[in-house]
C-alpha cells in the first residue's frame, strides 16, 4: 500500500478497571491503516475488536502506546469530526423522520439549511433510500434502518467510516445485499473503512485487509492482505482464492483460541 497512513497504532494497551479487578482489553496492538483501505477486525467476543474501534473514535482511552488518526490524537480527530461511526443497532431517533435523523449530525455541525437538504438528498440516494426521507424509522425494515444509519454517518463526509458489527443483527439475505451495497459505496466514495465483524465470509468478502484478533488479552494474531480484486460479485465467495483466505482466517482464529 503506497497511500498515506490514516490510522496508526503502536503498542496500544487498554486495561479496564472493573469490580472484579483489571481486565486487559487490548495488549500491544500495532497496526497501520492506509487511506482507502477496507480493514475488517474479526475475532471472538472479548478479543477487543470493538474496543480498538472505540479507541480510534476516542470513545475509549488507551492506557498505553500511541494512536494517531489523520496525524492527530483520537480526541483531536473526534473534535475535527474525522470519522463517521455506525453502531451495531441503527439507533435512529424514533421522533425524527429518516431525513431528520440524517440531518442530525449536520444540525449539530452547523451546516446551512440548504446544504443540509442537499446532503440528505445525496446520501439517501447513496444508500438507495431515495423517497424514504419522510418516513419514520418504525415504518422501515431493519435493513433499511441500518442503511439510514450508514447514510447518517456518511452525511458529513468524513474520510473515515468506522462500523461496529453494523449488520450483526440482520438476517443472512439482507446482510448479503448490504455487503454488496457497502462495497459499491466504498468504491464510489473512496473512504477508509474500519469494520468489526464476527462473520468470516463477511470479513473476507469486504476487506482489503483482515485483522484477526484473539481474546484474553485482546491482541492481533494475524493480518491478512486480501488478493481479491476490488470488483467483487457475490459469487466470488465460491472461488478457491476466497476459500483459501477464509481458511487462513479460520486458522488464525483457532490459533488464538489455543491459549485457553
Amino acid at each position, binding site marked *: 500500500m503506497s497511500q498515506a497512513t490514516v490510522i496508526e497504532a503502536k503498542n496500544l494497551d487498554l486495561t479496564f478497571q472493573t469490580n472484579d479487578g483489571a481486565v486487559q482489553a487490548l495488549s500491544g496492538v500495532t497496526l497501520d491503516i492506509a487511506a482507502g483501505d477496507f480493514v475488517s477486525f474479526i475475532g471472538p467476543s472479548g478479543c477487543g475488536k470493538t474496543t480498538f474501534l472505540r479507541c480510534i473514535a476516542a470513545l475509549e482511552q488507551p492506557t498505553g502506546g500511541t494512536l494517531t488518526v489523520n496525524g492527530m490524537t483520537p480526541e483531536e480527530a473526534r473534535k475535527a*469530526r474525522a470519522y463517521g*461511526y455506525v*453502531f*451495531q443497532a441503527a*439507533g435512529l431517533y*424514533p*421522533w*425524527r423522520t429518516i431525513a431528520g435523523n440524517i440531518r442530525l449530525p449536520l444540525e*449539530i*455541525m452547523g451546516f446551512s439549511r440548504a446544504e443540509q437538504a442537499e446532503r440528505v438528498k445525496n446520501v439517501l440516494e447513496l444508500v438507495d433510500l431515495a423517497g424514504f426521507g419522510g418516513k419514520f424509522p418504525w415504518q422501515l425494515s431493519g435493513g433499511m434502518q441500518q442503511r439510514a444509519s450508514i447514510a447518517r454517518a456518511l452525511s458529513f463526509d468524513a474520510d473515515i467510516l468506522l462500523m461496529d458489527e453494523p449488520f450483526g443483527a440482520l438476517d443472512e439475505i439482507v446482510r448479503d445485499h448490504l455487503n454488496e451495497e457497502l462495497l459499491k459505496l466504498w468504491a464510489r466514495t473512496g473512504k477508509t473503512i474500519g469494520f468489526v465483524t464476527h462473520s468470516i465470509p463477511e470479513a473476507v468478502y469486504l476487506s482489503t485487509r483482515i485483522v484477526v484478533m484473539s481474546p484474553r488479552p485482546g491482541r492481533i494474531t494475524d493480518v491478512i492482505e486480501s488478493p481479491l480484486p476490488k470488483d467483487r460479485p457475490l459469487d466470488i465467495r465460491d472461488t478457491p482464492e476466497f476459500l483459501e483466505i477464509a481458511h487462513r482466517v479460520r486458522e488464525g482464529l483457532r490459533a488464538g483460541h489455543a491459549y485457553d
Partner: protein
Amino acid sequence: MRSVVPVLAVVAVILAIWYLACLPMNIHTALTNAERAGVAVQPEGAAERRDRSGIGLALTNPGQWADTWAQDKPRLPAPHQVLAELWDTTAMKKVTSKRSLVFHGWITLSATLLGFAIGTGMGIVLAIGIVHSRAMDMSVMPWAIASQTIPILAIAPMIIVVLNSVGVQGLLPKAIISAYLSFFPVVVGMVKGLRSPDAMQFDLLRTYNASRGQTFAKLRLPASVPYLFASLKVGIAASLVGAIVGELPTGAVRGLGARLLTGSYYGQTIQIWSALFATAVLAAVLVALIAGAERMTLKRMGLGR
C-alpha cells in the same frame, strides 16, 4: 361501542350498591321523622333504636325506605339527590353567585392551574439540574422525596400562615401548596425521561462532538416527552388536591374546598357530596385535557401509533 354495555353495567352496580347503602345509613332519621308524623314504627322511641343496627331497622320497617332517599340532611345522600344538587348549583345558578359550584370550581381551578404551572416548571428545572449535576442529584433528590413524606394537611396551614405574615394572600398560597404536590411526579418522570436514551445514543452524539446543550436539545429533551406527559397526568390531579387542601385551613369562603368545609360545618351532606363530585369531574376533565395534548404531541413527534 362494544364497551358501552360493560361500562353501563358497572355504573348500574355502583348505583344499586349506593341506593342500598342509603337504607341502613339513613333509616334512624327516617324512623324518627315517621314517628313524629304519627306513623307506627318498630321498635318505638328514638332512644330504643339508637343502638340498633341500621340493617336490622331497615329490614323491619320496609315502609320507611322511601324516606331514606329523600331526607334534607341524610348521613348518605342518594345519587339522585346529589345529581339534583349538582344541577341546581351549576346550571340553575348564575356563575357569579356564591351558591354556584361553577363559581367555586373556578376559584379552585385557577389555583390548581397556577400551582400546576409553578410545580411543572420547578419540576422540569430541578430534573434538568439533577441530570446534569451529580452534586444536585445527591443533594436535591433526597429533599424532594422527603418533602412528599410530610402530610400535606400538616404543612398546608404553615405555608398559609407564613405567607400571610409576609403579606401574601389569596391565590398564591393555595397555588404554592398545589405546586408542592405536583412538582414531585414531574421531577421523578423528567429525571427518568432525560436519562432514558441508552449509552449508544450518547456515544453517537460524542462522535459528532456535540455540546452538552446540543445533547440536551436534540436527544435528552425529545426522549423525555413521553415520560413528561405521564408525570403531568399525575401532577395535575395532585395539583387539584393541593388547591383544595389549601382552601381548608383558612376557613376559606370560596372554592370547592370551602364548599366541603361549610358543608361539614352545617351537616349539609348533599353539598359535600356534590362538591366531591364536582372535584372528581374537574379532575377527570383536566387529566383528559392532558391526555389529549399528549396524543397530539406524540403524534406530531411520530411516536403515536
